[in-house]
């Protein structure tokens, strides 16, 4: 397993956000984490990337225990996140934002290659490389956030709500690109409220409810699960 989360709990002050969750992500997979607002999806992501420290449990990445490691060290290990709300640097240009994505890398040739790859996936970014990030549309910022995360050449790509605030057509596009990134060899853990899209693209998925995993299975299984359908797919 590339990523193993074991019995992870996390508190915000006195409020417990995660109640001993366990998640596994194998090499080459797309795994989706679905659930309602406040279920703990983003909290799980923040624990994996190191922005929040768990109160108990274990996180292992490629066999190493990274539970208490600093966020910037996990980037070097190969974990890269496109955060909720995109988190681009508003005062930097597209190119500078992408440059931040490879902050820890020194292989110039590889960086150049990856920049071409990102521009291949998102031609829009190539057209706007000199534009300041804060002035771009929501969809463009989302592309920039994903592109920036790819610039780290991660083993594991964490995508937090890549479809948030986007028009339906753009959502299709983003998910197609996510599949493409996966086929190029990057493992993906995806957090989504758009369960329909997430489940139809993911190999496996977990359903999170109030900080607990309540269901897990392949994407196809969960798509037809009556309870999941009822709660997350908006079809009676």
């Amino acid at each position: 397993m590339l990523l193993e989360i074991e019995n992870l709990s996390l508190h915000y002050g006195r409020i417990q956000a995660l109640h001993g969750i366990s998640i596994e992500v194998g090499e080459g997979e797309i795994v989706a984490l679905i659930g309602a607002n406040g279920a703990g999806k983003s909290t799980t992501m923040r624990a994996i990337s190191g922005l929040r420290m768990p109160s108990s449990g274990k996180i292992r990445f490629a066999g190493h225990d990274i539970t208490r490691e600093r966020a910037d060290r996990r980037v070097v290990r190969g974990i890269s996140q496109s955060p909720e709300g995109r988190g681009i640097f508003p005062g930097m240009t597209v190119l500078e934002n992408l440059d931040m994505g490879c902050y820890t890398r020194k292989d110039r040739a590889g960086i150049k290659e990856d920049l071409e790859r990102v521009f291949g996936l998102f031609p829009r970014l190539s057209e706007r490389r000199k534009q300041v990030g804060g002035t771009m549309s929501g969809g463009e910022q989302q592309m920039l956030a994903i592109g920036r995360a790819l610039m780290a050449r991660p083993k594991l790509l964490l995508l937090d709500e890549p479809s948030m605030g986007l028009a339906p057509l753009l959502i299709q596009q983003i998910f197609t690109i996510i599949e493409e990134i996966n086929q190029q060899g990057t493992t993906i853990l995806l957090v989504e409220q758009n369960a329909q899209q997430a489940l139809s693209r993911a190999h496996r998925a977990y359903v999170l409810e109030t900080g607990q995993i309540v269901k897990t299975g392949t994407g196809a299984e969960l798509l037809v699960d009556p309870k999941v359908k009822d709660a997350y797919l908006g079809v009676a």
Partner: protein
Amino acid sequence: MQFEYWLDNFWSLTVGGLTQGAIYALVALGYTLVYGVLRLINFAHSEVFMIGTFAVPIAWTAIGYGRDAHPSGLGSVVLLFAVGLIAAALASAATAMLVERVAYRPLRPKNPPSLIFLITAIGASVVLSEAVGLLVKRKPMGAMTLIQPKEVFTIFGTSVDNVQLLVVGAAIGMMLLLDQFINRTRAGRGVRAVAQNPDAAALMGVNRDRIILMIFMLGGIMAGGAALLYMIKVGSTKYDAGFLLGVKAFAAAVLGGIGNLRGALLGGLLLGVVENWGAGLIGDKWIDATAFVVLVVILMFRPTGLLGESLGRARA
């Protein structure tokens, strides 16, 4: 009002104000850098400057140039300038980094309200100035005259001397270097990333604590430069020399737009000039009052300062 006096001496007041303002600007950079990244007003920065002023005569005396020395020849003046700059920059940067390590970093993981940082800042400031006060028995310390003021040229009938030129030139030079560092280097990009979005910066692999320490170091180096120029211009320092100058430099930073490097330059020069005009217009003892009245008036009309916040969270 001595309107005629002010008009007659307009250019000499302006040149004098620019010289003082250049020193404000260098110190203001320290406030602005730290604020831009941490949203924290490092009130101990005035002491960072003060300790730099002491380092200059101590270093000069250590290499044989005591109070009454008369350096001769351009070579030795340049060498002494370099020694003074290195000593002051080292002392100030070390002080600034110590303050960060002792007074701020231990608090950060607990995520306390910003008022707490303000209190430790004031505490650190008092501790530093009192410690130096005890060490030097609260006596002033003088330095030799590195450069005898000599008229270089006249502009509008006002003579401009070499010390004034050196102070303004050196200050602007240091600021340009800092500006290039922040905008052109990888470490500078890390600084801007932490300022614009600390969480996202961590996700890019930026070590936030290291960037913060570097910010304090850079602010300290600039304050060290200011300390050297101050000693060349004024010639003597005291354990409480940082206080008023620090408050003025902070005012300059706010005036230009705190968090904005170019704003610190503009605010510093402007504050120096305006307070000197005020002194000429109303009388010398009104110099400090003028500075703060101008600050208040400008903030009433432009609450984010003249250039606005920019290193920080300002959206383009």
